[in-house]
């Protein structure tokens, strides 16, 4: 049987055709770990026949197979990270060839050849040389880079505008107005305020935002002469909270009433923390509980316990999963980015408000894109004009 197959193979006229446009080049925008091979599809391709790609350290071998797939697979359009989403991808195949050099070691040249294998026979292309080199710039992330640059510029421009004209309009955020009220109420009742920073570490934007708000809260707490306690989940956050509060008390002109043990560490175990904080709530009966930052499952354990003590509860989180629980149990809830806006809103500093408006510009840009995309994109489908899908190309992320 094997002999027969061999015979057939030998007898078969070698009309296995080689594809056109075979080309090998260094993968752009990578760390030098691979090269790309591309070639045009054959006029007749079947799932039984395969493309094979080999690599070798020298022109005459030894050859090592690095890719093999049926002719009906491996399209350029499957790999927008290398080739984009343009219509030029039609009818082209590609393969990625791993570099010979170890990661981080100097680049090494290699030879690559393409083969066709199928019932009709086999054929191989002439080898081509390529050296995968590490690149210094990821051009496929240009759209991301431009967004970052543009957003930074807009932010700075709006900040400088805000400096010139500090009377910026910011709509009311009821949850933040209520904070002031809650602090006042705590003062009247002579009861403490409980402030939680969330469960993320200092390297989370929500926690950073929360400590910034704590600074503003501390100023008011100092001015009203109320007590505040900040049980912390993370030791670094505790340190930052202490710094922030100290400065808040200094800014309010009452450095002497600042107690460094107002922010204290509980434990970094999620439910140990909850048990302890719930205990504090039940025993100290704070007049107001602020939950600002990132929360996990403990949100409801905290807020529901707080609700039974009769405290005013104000929450703010960008943790989408926990928002429903805060909404159900708290008096006010800052939703998502309102948390980030809070510090700017409370501080009323023009610089901060300027960057808040930059967020709005970002949203307006997104709204415009969605609107444009809806109109143009729908037209593309209705009138069967794929060229109109250009917006998708602009915002595609190639990773």
């Amino acid at each position: 049987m094997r002999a027969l197959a061999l015979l057939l193979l030998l007898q078969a006229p070698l009309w296995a055709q080689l594809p056109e446009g075979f080309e090998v080049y260094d993968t752009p925008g990578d760390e030098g770990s691979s090269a790309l091979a591309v070639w045009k599809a054959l006029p007749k391709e079947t799932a039984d026949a395969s493309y094979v790609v080999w690599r070798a350290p020298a022109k005459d071998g030894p050859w090592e197979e690095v890719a093999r797939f049926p002719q009906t697979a491996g399209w350029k359009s499957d790999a927008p990270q290398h080739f984009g989403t343009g219509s030029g991808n039609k009818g082209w195949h590609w393969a990625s060839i791993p570099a010979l050099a170890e990661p981080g070691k100097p680049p090494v040249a290699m030879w690559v050849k393409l083969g066709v294998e199928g019932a009709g026979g086999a054929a191989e292309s002439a080898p081509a040389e390529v050296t995968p080199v590490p690149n210094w710039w990821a051009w496929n992330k240009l759209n991301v880079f431009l967004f970052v640059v543009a957003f930074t510029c807009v932010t700075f421009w709006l900040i400088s505008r805000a400096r010139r004209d500090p009377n910026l309009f910011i709509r009311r955020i009821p949850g933040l107005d209520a904070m002031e009220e809650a602090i006042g109420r705590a003062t009247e009742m002579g009861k403490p305020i409980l402030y939680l920073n969330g469960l993320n570490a200092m390297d989370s934007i929500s926690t950073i935002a929360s400590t910034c708000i704590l600074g503003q809260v501390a100023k008011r707490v100092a001015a009203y002469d109320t007590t505040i306690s900040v049980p912390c989940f993370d030791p670094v956050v505790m340190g930052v909270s202490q710094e922030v509060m100290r400065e808040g008390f200094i800014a309010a002109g009452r450095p002497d009433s600042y107690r460094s043990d107002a922010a204290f560490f509980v434990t970094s175990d999620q439910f140990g923390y909850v048990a302890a904080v719930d205990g504090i709530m039940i025993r100290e009966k704070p007049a107001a509980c602020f939950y600002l930052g990132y929360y996990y499952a403990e949100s409801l354990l905290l807020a529901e316990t707080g609700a039974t003590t009769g405290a005013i509860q104000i929450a703010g989180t960008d943790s989408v999963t926990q928002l429903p629980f805060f909404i159900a149990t708290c008096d006010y809830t800052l939703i998502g980015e309102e948390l980030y806006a809070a510090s700017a809103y409370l501080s009323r500093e023009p610089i901060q408000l300027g960057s808040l408006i930059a967020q709005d510009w970002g949203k307006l840009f997104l709204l415009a894109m969605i609107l444009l995309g809806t109109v143009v994109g729908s037209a593309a489908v209705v009138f069967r004009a794929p060229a109109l899908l250009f917006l998708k190309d602009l915002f595609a992320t190639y990773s």
Partner: protein
Amino acid sequence: MNTLPLTLLAQEAAAADPGFWGGPGMQAFGLWVAVGFTLAIYTFLYRDNPVFKFAEHVFVGVSNGYLLCYTWFTVVKPMLVVPLWHAIRPPADKPLEANETLWLLVPAFLSLCMLMRFVPKAAWMSRWAFAFMVGTTSGVLIPLTVQAQIYKQLFPMLGGFVSRGGDTDAVLWVASLKSLLILIGVFAVLTYFLFSVEHKGPVRVFARTGIVFLMIAFGASFGYTVMARESLLIGRVKFLITQAGSEGKYRTFAMMAVVVALVAALEMLRVRATPPPAAEPAPPEAK
């Protein structure tokens, strides 16, 4: 946790030397402790009481002790102390890669800065470490967020809402309508979040629509979570049930009797000790 992993652990422990802590004695004792603390925590459902308070304080103490050791064994020792020690005294079989290890002096220095918080006069040095942590996070986050959150979420909305399919490649009305509603929803909710525009006129209409979408979404997430929360409760109740039978040496019943008796006794003491609540001024009612 149910009994299966414990029996499995027991087999394994038998293969290796179980030692005192892995031995059957400590295991059985552990289960008594586990059942006791489980019930003690549940007394919080009744109200705050000394039994819960005791469990809570044990919880905080044990978790801190464990986490301190854990961090040492998994982070500080292998990532900082051992490499630095090897830089001072290279082990015989490993030549020193000095230039790489010496970089560890940076986190070592910043860690020291952090610990300066213990010295009130030099506490400000911790700001250097704060700045490093906060700065690096912010930097890493910016490109990633644009790419993975903004662009990736925006992308599917740029192809319009009309979709075609089927044998005739006709417009799929139901799917298209669904996509259109999603688009309207995203548009409305984003409008609701605008800070610098007053919610008046057409903005108000969109913002109100946004709230409708938000409320449905929050309700849905709440409802969706019920199952998750109840499964945890089911898991715990299952544990108590397995420990209630003869296999579990009737631990649940025994501990339940102890915990209930303790709570009841302490409650009675408390009621006797405290004056009637009318003596306290009534706090203003929270809304």
